[in-house]
């Protein structure tokens, strides 16, 4: 089954985010109040290790499963979309304490009202798709 490896990565991701408390609404609140180092430590070490991994793959030390170079898709150039979209995302993130990964993970931990949040996030994505050409990017 070719999808099994993705299922296992997803399970591992879910476990890590619960055990690290990164899915905790309270940890997000605490982070935006600058009252704890915990979340900054997680994000900081994740980025540091990520940089290390990507520099090693850039030098050809690590290849992907097919033996080819590891490629990270380049984000389009721009400013407005990143700052406006980013701020709107930040409002939602701090309000409900969950970004798209934790939404699904919290559902698994038994927070069933997350279904409403996910449905609303789908609606938000849909409305963006409709308005896309009218928005500054």
């Amino acid at each position: 089954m070719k999808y099994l490896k993705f299922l296992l990565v997803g399970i591992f991701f879910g476990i890590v985010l619960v055990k690290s408390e990164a899915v905790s609404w309270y940890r997000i609140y605490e982070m935006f109040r600058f009252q704890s180092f915990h979340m900054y430590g997680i994000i900081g070490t994740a980025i540091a290790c990520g940089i290390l991994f990507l520099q090693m793959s850039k030098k050809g030390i690590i290849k992907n499963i097919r033996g080819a170079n590891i490629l990270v898709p380049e984000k389009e150039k721009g400013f407005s979309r990143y700052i406006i979209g980013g701020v709107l995302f930040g409002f939602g993130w701090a309000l409900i304490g969950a970004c798209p990964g934790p939404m699904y993970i919290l559902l698994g931990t038994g927070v069933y009202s997350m279904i409403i949040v996910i449905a609303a996030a789908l609606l938000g994505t849909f409305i963006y798709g409709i308005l896309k050409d009218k928005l500054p990017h």
Partner: protein
Amino acid sequence: MEHILAPWPWYISGPLIALVMSLLLYLGKTFGMSSNLRTMCSMMGAGKAANFFKFNWKEQKWNLIVVLGAVIGGFIATQYLSDSSTTDLNPKTVAELQHMGFKNSGIELVPDEIYSLEAFTTPKGLLLLIIGGFLVGFGTRYAGGCTSGHAITGLSSLQKPSLIAVIGFFVGGLIMTNFILPLIF
């Protein structure tokens, strides 16, 4: 085993999140959770309403499987890999939240005041969940990524657009937590 059952420290958790990103890149994919929202819209036929959703969503099936795994992972972590520890929050945070009407901070992963059955059956509670979810869904697609795509993958690959987006995430989060939440609660 004790160490696994207790909450994991940040210096273990951060590198493990980088490992998730690395595994997905190794498998020839990328780490981006919010893309699944677009994929699910396409699956439900949103391509009829906007070109943005006209793409071969079946190529994104692997990412939906990651989502399914994440749900299972959340279940496993709480059912089998947790002891009775609570979140070790700053006492100042707990006191502040208490003052805003949040009882039992850190006992569960999310506050009852927002997520319990009683909360979401009130108009205010339901509205909060809908507005929050909507902003996350709209904002993440507008910004072209979320915490996994921009903050972890984008910053790890030293991309300027991701830095702008992450600054946006924090500006929005700081305004919400420090100025808007106290007005709501």
